[in-house]
């Protein structure tokens, strides 16, 4: 495991140096994009209102507060990752369409995303689930919001972050997928353990 820092715009060379299990801290632009943003761009083919090339996206639905004295300016109250697997359906196309380099979320993603990461030099990383105040603390400024008509959690929030992490690389650009690997290991162990327990639970008379 190595610890690294990444800054946007992220270059392909930076991505190719990363391996699953590495810990990364991000500085620069992190933009929230979850279910509805993926759906709008890929399925409904609506053009994105901003450029994501070389940047990072965050599968997250934050709690934001608008400043009473400054309309249209927001502060993050709490922001944490949501389950990335929900975006599996469209993530490969999303990477292709946007040139995004780093995808941050919770839990693993599947084969299709892993193929997309390999083909377009991108990585998926996880932020510790539920650590919402920690994440909010690393946001320096909410620079803007797009597609607010989708509602607060689903809108595109443009965040400028500093040392945002820890981010654990779960899919690298070399075809490795940490959580898929773990899942295989969990399932192999499961079979033996269940068989062992089941020798002791014959309670039926």
């Amino acid at each position, binding site marked *: 495991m190595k610890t690294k820092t990444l800054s946007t715009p992220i270059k392909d060379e930076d991505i190719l140096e990363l391996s699953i299990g590495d810990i990364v801290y991000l500085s620069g632009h992190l933009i929230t994009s979850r279910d509805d943003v993926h759906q709008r761009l890929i399925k409904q083919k609506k053009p994105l209102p901003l450029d994501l090339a070389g940047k990072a996206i965050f599968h997250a639905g934050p709690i934001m*507060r608008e400043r009473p004295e400054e309309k249209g300016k927001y502060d993050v109250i709490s922001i944490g990752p949501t389950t990335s697997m929900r975006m599996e359906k469209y993530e490969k196309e999303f990477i292709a369409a946007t040139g995004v380099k780093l995808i941050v979320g*919770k839990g693993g993603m599947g084969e299709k995303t892993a193929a997309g990461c390999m083909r377009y030099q991108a990585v998926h990383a996880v932020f510790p689930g539920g650590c919402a105040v920690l994440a909010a603390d690393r946001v320096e400024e909410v620079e803007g919001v797009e597609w607010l008509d989708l509602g607060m959690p689903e809108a595109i929030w443009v965040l400028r972050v500093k040392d945002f992490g820890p981010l654990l690389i779960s899919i690298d650009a070399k075809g490795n997928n940490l959580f898929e690997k773990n899942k295989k290991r969990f399932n192999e162990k499961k079979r033996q353990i269940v068989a062992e*327990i*089941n020798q002791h*639970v014959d309670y039926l008379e």
Partner: protein
Amino acid sequence: MDQEKMRTRFIDIMAAFTAYTGIYLPDDVLAKLKELAAKEDAPMATTFYDAMFKDLEMAATLSRPCCQDTGVIQYFIQVGTSFPLINEIEDCLAAAVKQATAALPLRHNVVEVFDEKNTGNNVGTRIPWLDWEIVPRRDDVKIYVYMAGGGCSLPGAAKVLMPLEGYEGVVSFVFDQITSYGINACPPLLVGIGIAGSAEVASKLSKKALLRPIGSHNHNPRGAALETMIEEGLNEIGLGPGGVTGRQSVLGVHIEQAGRHPATIAVGLSTGCWAHRRGLIKIDADLRYEVLSHKGAVL
């Protein structure tokens, strides 16, 4: 105190306690997290535990919800038949949820079924969800607050087994669910299992099992032994914090049971995440409160 004053006081206490539960983990969960973290030495696992403790510390300092998903609010009520506000509890708890939602703030998490609209105040059809137990010959009330997050509610399931599938079927069901859905539920998990004769009883008991303090055991010796076997087995799988692998997987495994039908063994499963926000408060007939889940808590 007149009735109206008592109502206001009850709402204020419950709003403050609901918000409090969103910020601070209960003593037993916190102690267990520390115990589990101390046993990890792999860098991925320790990095994740460090993040959790840092997050909790900052949540306390800033009075913010420790996790952004403050869940759908559920109250499990044990009310004495002579509690003076027994007729008012339902309305008061809805008012308390609205108050806490605006004050903390809590995330808006209640979507009306069919209309598919978020109510915007965490109150909706049958929500906050109330579970009632009536306690004869008492004049106080004990209320559990539980924040049912999305991620940790996802592994939930129930199944009615044929008796010949036996307790083996129960064990397989639990392990299959946890290995398939557990990692997205923010482990270490608290695993609640209900065993009964029909799906709804088993499900409800699985949730009540999550309310038991960590470290407590099923009152039946076989039940207690099965809890330990499943706990040790799940730990051996080693989901680790956040599913990144580690020496353990769970905060605990709790089983609750009800008599079953000879022809069925129903099993229900509920899970709680590392941010297991469960609070317990006792309020007496004079509306003095005592927080039982967080020692020394002042609202």
